[in-house]
């Protein structure tokens, strides 16, 4: 049971894992994804509100406050939970990005174009 810290084979595996993950990360993180227009807010897996990202405003709920800022970004600015993870996650604006609040079971997710835009097209 004497193992080495690293072997040649394992270093190749680890390096290729890093490469694969970096590529995955590039693919998902903004380089190719567009900014979203609307945000869906779910509580207990039910859609409770759809927020337009083009209008600046502050949205207040019982457990948290959200703010939409100029460049179509949305962030949680206040939460009543202890860990404050959702506040630390900062601003999001790209399609697919989301902010989660596990204690309050709320999910904020940036979506693509709104249904209205699709109808107009």
């Amino acid at each position: 049971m004497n193992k080495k810290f690293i072997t040649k084979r394992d270093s190749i595996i680890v390096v290729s894992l890093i490469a694969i993950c970096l590529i995955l990360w590039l693919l998902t993180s903004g380089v190719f994804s567009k900014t979203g227009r609307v945000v869906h807010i779910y509580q207990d897996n039910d859609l409770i509100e759809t927020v337009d990202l083009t209008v600046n405003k502050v949205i207040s709920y019982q457990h948290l406050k959200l703010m939409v800022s100029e460049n179509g970004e949305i962030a949680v600015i206040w939460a009543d939970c202890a860990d404050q993870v959702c506040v630390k996650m900062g601003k999001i604006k790209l399609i697919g990005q989301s902010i989660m609040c596990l204690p309050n079971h709320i999910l904020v997710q940036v979506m693509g174009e709104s249904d209205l835009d699709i109808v107009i097209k």
Partner: protein
Amino acid sequence: MSNSIRKLTIISLLLAIAIVLTMVENLIPIDFGMVGIKLGLANIVVMFCLLTMGARSAFLIVLAKALFVMFSKGTVAFSLSMGGGLLAFLVMYCLIKNDDQVSYILISVLGAMAFNIGQLIMISIWYSSLAVFYYLPVLLISGIVTGIITASILSRCMPLLRRLY
């Protein structure tokens, strides 16, 4: 008989170390503005246990640590600890069992990645939504980095820890 008492004592000791390491790493202010990016120091203990004392003892530590999390932080944190811990345990166990040549770094890196995937699976179950998998690449990269760190700590500590068991 005395041998099994000795084993039980060491497992309890390792569990205590795992819990303390988790508390210590919570004190380290690494903040990437991201959920789930942690050093995973407790994984060192699980790896040590898996390598020296066998799968049963390691499984016991994963389970007991998750239970401790449940009592101190609640059921959501428990499910995350359990999902991550179990998947990491399975991956590391299969790796050690099927590959004699495997090095610390590969066990640790794949274990850390599995832990993060397991946690994401649990979160997506809580939300019944796959939205969280958006963070998978970042979490995997962080898993690789923290895996390398924990592997180097383990390989340094191994000669000392071997005196324990």
